[in-house]
C-alpha cells in the first residue's frame, strides 16, 4: 500500500448578477413615527444571509443603529419585485435596491430635520441615529424626533423606494457573440490550492487541505462571507471527488435515492480550509461588495485534479475523481498507456472521451495540426 500526496492550484473568475443583466430588484422602506426603519424586499433568504446584509446596508446608508431596522421579505403583497436569490445577486443587485431606497429615506429625513433645525439639509448628516449639523455637533436631533415631527407635525410619511436594473445586454452578432454592453456586473476572482492524499491501491482520494484566496470586493459581513466560502469549498470538494447523480454516466441506472447512496460530503471529510479575503472594492456594488456565493464552489475541482496528478501522475478529467477512475487511470498508466498522443506539435489527451471517438457522424471537434 502506498499513499501519495500532491498539490494543485487553480485561479478563477466569476461575474455578479444574471448574465446579460435585465434582472430587476426593488425595495421600499417606511419609517415609523419613532424613527424605526421597516424594509420590504422580495429577496428570499436561502441561507445566504441576505436579510442581514440588506439590513446592514440600510442601517449604514441612513445612519441608524442596525437594530432599528426590521426586514420583511415574507410575501409578495407587501414586498416589491425581486428577480430572486441566484446568480450571486442578492447582495450586489438586490442590496443596491435597498441602498437606493435608504438613500431616499435619508434625504427625506434630512429635509424634515432641516425644517425643524432651520438648517439647510445639505449641512446635516446622520450618525448613529442622530441628525447632526456638520461642523457643529452640539446642534442635533434624534432621528426618532425627526420621524415624529414628520408624522405629527408635517403630516408626512417618510418612505423610500429603490430599484436596481442593469439593462439587458443583447447579443448583436450571433456569429461572434458580441454584446452591446457589459453582460454582467462586477467580476470577482479567486484562487485555490488543494492538497490531497491518494491511495494507489484503492484509488481513494482524500482532500487534506484547501487554501483559498477570494477577492470579495468588500465584505459587508465578513463572517457571512466566510460562511459562503467555507460552504462552497465543501460543495466544491463534493464536485471534485464525491458527488454524481449518475455513477455510470451517460447511463442513467443506479442513481442514489438517499443520503446513504448519494455521496454528499460529510463532516468527517472536511479538510483544513484556510481563507484569505482580499477587499478590492467593486466600482458599482453596494459599498464595493461583489457577489461571491456561487463562485465559492468553482476553484476546488480543478485544483484537486491537478493535485491528484501531482500525487500519482494521472489526469482524471471526468468528475468526480472517484476511486474507480483513479484506479483505471493508474492501470492504463501501468500498462504503458494513459499518455497523451503526440502528433507533430499536437499533444492530445483523453482521446477516448472525445466526440470524434464516440460519435459516428454529425459532430466532430476538428483541431488544425
Amino acid at each position, binding site marked *: 500500500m502506498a499513499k501519495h500526496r500532491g498539490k494543485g492550484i487553480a485561479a478563477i473568475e466569476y461575474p455578479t448578477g444574471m448574465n446579460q443583466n435585465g434582472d430587476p430588484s426593488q425595495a421600499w422602506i417606511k419609517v415609523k413615527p419613532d424613527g424605526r426603519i421597516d424594509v420590504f424586499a422580495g429577496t428570499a433568504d436561502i441561507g445566504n444571509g441576505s436579510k442581514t446584509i440588506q439590513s446592514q446596508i440600510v442601517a449604514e446608508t441612513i445612519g441608524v443603529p442596525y437594530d432599528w431596522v426590521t426586514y420583511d421579505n415574507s410575501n409578495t403583497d407587501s414586498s416589491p419585485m425581486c428577480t430572486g436569490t441566484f446568480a450571486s445577486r442578492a447582495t450586489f443587485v438586490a442590496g443596491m435596491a435597498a441602498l437606493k431606497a435608504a438613500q431616499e429615506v435619508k434625504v427625506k429625513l434630512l429635509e424634515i430635520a432641516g425644517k425643524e433645525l432651520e438648517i439647510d439639509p445639505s449641512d446635516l448628516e446622520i450618525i448613529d441615529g442622530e441628525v447632526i449639523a456638520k461642523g457643529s455637533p452640539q446642534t442635533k436631533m434624534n432621528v426618532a424626533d425627526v420621524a415624529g415631527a414628520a408624522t405629527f407635525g408635517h403630516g408626512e410619511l417618510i418612505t423610500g423606494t429603490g430599484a436596481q436594473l442593469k439593462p439587458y445586454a443583447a447579443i448583436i452578432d450571433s456569429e461572434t457573440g458580441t454584446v452591446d454592453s457589459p453582460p454582467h456586473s462586477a467580476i470577482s476572482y479567486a484562487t485555490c490550492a488543494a492538497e490531497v492524499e491518494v491511495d494507489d491501491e484503492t484509488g481513494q482520494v482524500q482532500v487534506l487541505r484547501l487554501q483559498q484566496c477570494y477577492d470579495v470586493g468588500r465584505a459587508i459581513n465578513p463572517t457571512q462571507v466566510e*460562511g459562503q466560502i*467555507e*460552504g462552497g469549498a465543501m460543495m466544491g470538494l463534493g464536485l471534485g471527488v464525491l458527488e454524481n447523480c449518475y455513477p455510470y454516466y451517460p447511463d442513467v441506472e443506479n442513481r442514489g435515492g438517499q443520503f446513504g447512496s448519494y455521496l454528499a460530503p460529510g463532516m468527517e471529510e*472536511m479538510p483544513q480550509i*484556510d481563507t484569505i479575503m*482580499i*477587499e478590492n472594492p467593486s466600482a458599482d456594488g453596494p459599498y464595493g461588495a461583489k457577489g461571491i456565493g456561487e463562485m465559492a464552489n468553482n476553484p476546488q475541482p480543478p485544483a484537486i485534479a491537478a493535485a491528484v496528478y501531482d500525487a500519482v501522475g494521472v489526469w482524471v478529467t471526468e468528475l468526480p475523481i472517484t476511486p474507480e477512475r483513479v484506479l483505471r487511470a493508474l492501470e492504463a498508466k501501468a500498462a504503458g498507456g494513459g499518455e497523451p498522443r503526440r502528433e507533430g506539435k499536437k499533444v492530445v489527451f483523453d482521446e477516448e472521451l472525445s466526440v470524434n471517438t464516440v460519435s459516428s457522424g454529425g459532430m466532430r471537434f476538428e483541431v488544425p495540426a
Partner: protein
Amino acid sequence: MNLTVNGVTHEIESSPLTTLLDVLREELGITGAKAGCHQGGCGACTVLIDGEPRRSCLMPVGYANGGEITTVEGLGTVDDLSPIQQAFVHHYAAQCGFCTSGMMLAGQSYIAHGGSDDAEAIQKALGGHVCRCTGYSKIIDAVAAAARGDSFDLTETAIGKHTTMATGGAE
C-alpha cells in the same frame, strides 16, 4: 402510549409504528424537528430521547413510549438561549437553519456526555448529520466553544479560525 416532550406529557393516538418525527410534527404540532429525508440519512430530525440523540424519523413511536423527549424547543427560549444555541449564533453555525436543530441536539448530547472541544471527536459524534450550507467548519467551532464553556457575545459573530483579512490585495 404517552410521551413527555420538553416537560409536557402527551397521550399519543398514532400507531406504535408511526415515526416519532411524524408524531411530533403531525400529531402534536411540534415542528422544531425537521423532515429532511425520512430515511435516517440527514439528521435534521434528531431529538433527544431520555437524553440520547436519535433520528426521530427512524424511531417507531412505540419504542419511545413513556420517554422524555427533548426537541429544539426544549433547549432554551428566545430570551434565554442555552449555551449551545448561543454558540450557534455567535459562530454563525446556522445558515439556512434546516439542519440546525438536529445539529444542536446532537452537539448538546455530545457535551452532556463529557465531550471536549476536540474537532475530530466532534466530527465523529455529529458525523451523520448533513449540512449543505456551512461546510461544517463553523458548526464544529460552535460545538467546541460550547464544550469549552465559552461565554458568548450575541451582538457579533466570531472570526473564523483560519481566516485572514487583507485589503486592496498586492496591488
